[in-house]
């Protein structure tokens, strides 16, 4: 039986990718953010997960508005990163684990989730940056990408994303392989890139959300999408990915480490590692 040993989450700001490529991790601007990963990596080195399920959102690399899925699950042997148009370096491909992908797909459809199945899928910085942050030596385990639409309204509700993540967790628990799995929630926390409200950050909400992830993980599902936009910014809704990733772990979790830092680029950056209690 596969089991989820931990839930990881981090912001995925593209500038992070640039900073990694340029080796700026110890510069004063970046240090407080990157230092937050040291305890996470120590924990990962101890736990050595065999697979990772990444909940993220695509920013116009694989999906355009011509065909925009609410939930898309990758089922490919490898996932290529590609030129995203703004000059962050393209990373080498990431390994997939199609057997686990299909187990997740089968279970999600059986549980009435109307997903898109992708046997080829480009992955953008929202997928690659967290893997690169948690596994800087490029030794990330094979991954299952689960992409949530946070771009074109209507977005799936927080409740729906929670339910979807929970079903992914069920699929993992029912998977007939003796494997350790971690989930990653990618994105957030509060930020808004566009409009007169650009630069919006809501620190008290973010800190409450981080607290809730441990003790009261369904807390944020009380909010509608528009309430989340109001409280966290148009891009802050990426915390849907955190909710889904958290929901995959049934039962209680313990905080291994947490970091919250304002700002990285326009964003309140956060990192969180939880382990199964």
């Amino acid at each position, binding site marked *: 039986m596969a089991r989820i040993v931990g839930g990881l989450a981090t912001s995925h700001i593209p500038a992070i990718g640039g900073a990694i490529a340029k080796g700026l991790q110890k510069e004063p601007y970046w240090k407080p953010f990157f230092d937050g990963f040291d305890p996470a990596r120590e924990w990962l080195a101890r736990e050595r997960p065999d697979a990772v399920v990444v909940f993220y959102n695509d920013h116009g690399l694989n999906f355009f508005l011509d065909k925009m899925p609410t939930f898309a699950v990758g*089922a490919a042997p490898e996932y290529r990163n590609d030129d995203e148009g703004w000059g962050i370096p393209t990373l080498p491909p990431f390994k997939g684990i199609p057997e686990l992908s*299909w*187990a997740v*797909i*089968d279970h999600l459809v059986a549980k009435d989730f109307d997903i898109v199945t992708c*046997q080829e899928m480009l992955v953008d910085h929202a997928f690659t940056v967290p893997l690169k942050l948690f596994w800087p030596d490029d030794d990330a385990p094979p991954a299952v990408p689960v992409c949530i639409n946070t771009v074109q309204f209507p977005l799936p509700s927080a409740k729906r994303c929670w339910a979807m993540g929970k079903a992914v967790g069920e699929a993992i628990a029912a998977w007939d392989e003796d494997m350790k799995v971690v989930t990653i929630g990618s994105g957030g926390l509060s930020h808004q890139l566009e409009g007169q409200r650009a630069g919006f950050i809501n620190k008290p909400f973010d800190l409450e959300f981080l607290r809730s992830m441990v003790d009261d993980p369904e807390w944020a599902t009380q909010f509608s999408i528009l309430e989340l936009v109001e409280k966290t910014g148009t891009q802050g809704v990426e915390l849907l990915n955190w909710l889904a990733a958290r929901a995959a772990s049934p039962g209680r979790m313990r905080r291994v480490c947490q970091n919250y830092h304002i700002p990285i680029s326009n964003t309140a950056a956060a990192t969180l590692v939880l382990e199964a209690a």
Partner: protein
Amino acid sequence: MALDKAFKEIPGTIVFDAEQARKGYWLNQFCMSLMKAENRARFKADERAYLDGWKLTEEQKQAVVDRDLNRMMELGGNIYFLSKIGATDGKSFQQMAGSMTGMSEEDYRAMMLAGGRRIDGNRRIGEDGDAQRPRKD
């Protein structure tokens, strides 16, 4: 996989599930390329050369050249995708379907006119219907 085992117990039928979809990925993608007139022309001009441009296995390529639809299905093809090969050859769905049953075109057409293949004996492998041929897998 989670797909009910019962799907595998229907005679003469391959359900296009995860396993098939993975196995047949490039075979089916090749078929889709035949929706462009230009690609159909290139394929017809030199089938082997055109096939070599795709990541098909040697077995899949041979099955395409042989127009062996049952074999293509075994190797992960899906009938809706494979029908693009039939369309390229100017074949109807009925001709394609008939070719998989071991019947002549006339016999197949006559069977359809007489009400089609009967379900009795063809629900589960091991019954006594006319679609109960041994499966190769």
